[in-house]
């Protein structure tokens, strides 16, 4: 009886640790989100970019984008909320829009087209993957196994 109880406690502990790992795996996924204030064409219709968009994430301004500009923020988890302060024309009135998105797990860098989001277009129109340009690198890197990192 005592052995059975002990075994059950061990199984429950193991299951708890595995569950915690799974939760961390899900909630800890990091992304770099890029905001584009660029005009776009979707299904034959052109969407112009506003004069200025300010992006706030968690109460902090992370980007102030004029036409054709790009900003970025890093975020953890799949849920993403931002507040857009949009000024359509110079000296125009500022409107505020709150946006909630689910970020795809399989993308490290995500480009969001803000005019498309403002226009209420579907995900395929406003979201794309950011692919960094390949960097020219030397053929190989010297492996350093210097114990104290002092060098010669």
């Amino acid at each position, binding site marked *: 009886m005592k052995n059975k109880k002990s075994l059950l406690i061990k199984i429950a502990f193991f299951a708890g*640790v595995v569950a*915690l*790992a799974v*939760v*961390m*795996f899900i*909630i*800890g*996924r*990091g*992304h770099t989100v890029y905001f584009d204030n660029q005009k776009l064409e979707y299904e034959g219709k052109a969407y112009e970019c506003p004069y200025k968009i300010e992006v706030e994430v968690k109460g902090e301004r992370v980007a102030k984008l004029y036409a054709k500009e790009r900003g970025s923020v*890093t975020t*953890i988890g799949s849920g993403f909320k931002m507040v857009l302060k949009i000024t359509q024309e110079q000296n125009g009135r500022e409107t505020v829009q709150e946006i909630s998105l689910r970020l795809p797990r399989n993308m*490290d860098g995500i480009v969001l087209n803000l005019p498309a989001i403002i226009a209420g277009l579907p995900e395929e129109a406003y979201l794309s993957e950011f692919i960094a340009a390949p960097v020219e*690198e*030397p*053929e*190989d*890197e*010297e*492996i*350093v*196994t*210097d*114990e*104290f*990192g*002092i060098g010669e």
Partner: protein
Amino acid sequence: MIRLGAPSTGKKSFSEILSANFVPLMFIVICAVSIPLSGFSIGYLLNEVVTRMGRNIFLMLSLLIPIMAGMGLNFGMTLGAMAGQIALILVSDWQIWGIPGMVLAMILSIPFSIGLGLMCGKIMNQAKGREMVTSYIISHFMNGIYQLLVLYIMGNVIPIMHHSLKLPRGYGIRNTVSLLSMRQKLDNLIPLNIGGVKIPVATFIIIAFMCLFIVWFKKTKLGQDMRAVGQDMDVAREAGIDVEKTRIISMIISTVFAGFGMIIYLQNMGNIATYGSHVQVGMFCIAALLVGGASVEKASIGNVFIGVMLFHTMFIVAPKAGEAITGDSMIGEYFRVFVSYAVITIAIIMYEAKKRKTKSQLGRQLALAQKEEGNEK
């Protein structure tokens, strides 16, 4: 009846106190001379020492349990550090950031650490009385396996997706892995700044829990068994304690905690020196513990705190003090490396000398007692 044991007078003489605390006193003198020469402000020094305390204490605490079990200084803690690093490389590749990344890395490191600790414990059971040199050689042997894993298997067999982690040839991990996504996330979780000194509150809370765990663990049945094994294996065996199993458990616990400690250490650093971090920490933690007044057979939480403060103060001020004395900062740099090894050497020599002295004292007492017994007859 023959009664053996060193005669205890209760009070210790000045020379006994001096000899027992030789290493910490030497470091207090080194620091007292070097601090004014370095020209660093007290605020800067405090900031640096507090940062290094948060970075190193957990790792150093992992050394206490094998000492308690009589296995000496666990040079095999680098095995746990390797496990922590492997877990962090995988978590970095999966792009799990911040505290969740750290927690996941800790969980992932557990099976690696258990496996390595089990292996180390089993080997050390075959080399009783020579645990330190055995664990030191095991750490070098496993370093080779680690390098094989990280240099050839990762990217070839174990999928590594991100090019920023891989060597340009397409497999193997780079010399430095960035942990920018989790850099000081734990340290800054509860921000506190007192007079310009940044206190990593969350890290200290975890350290406090670890200290409480050690205090509690010593009082448990397993903890008592470990102390008994540490004092005398034969007596412990006679008392019904499974000595081998207890020693293996102590190695496993130490390795798992070393893995956790390495993750805390590296989140503070913000990058992994893939082929060097684990080797460095093993040596530095052992040296720092000895500087704190610990010995091969006895160490406490207090030794950890004193050691990290003294050793790292010396580490911070040595290059500048060296520059002030010789005009070359590299002298100070070499000095601190030389001191790390010297302190370990001195501690081991003192331990061996003390052991021999006690042995010869006991021999003399035994001879005297036998002589007295003969006279009585």
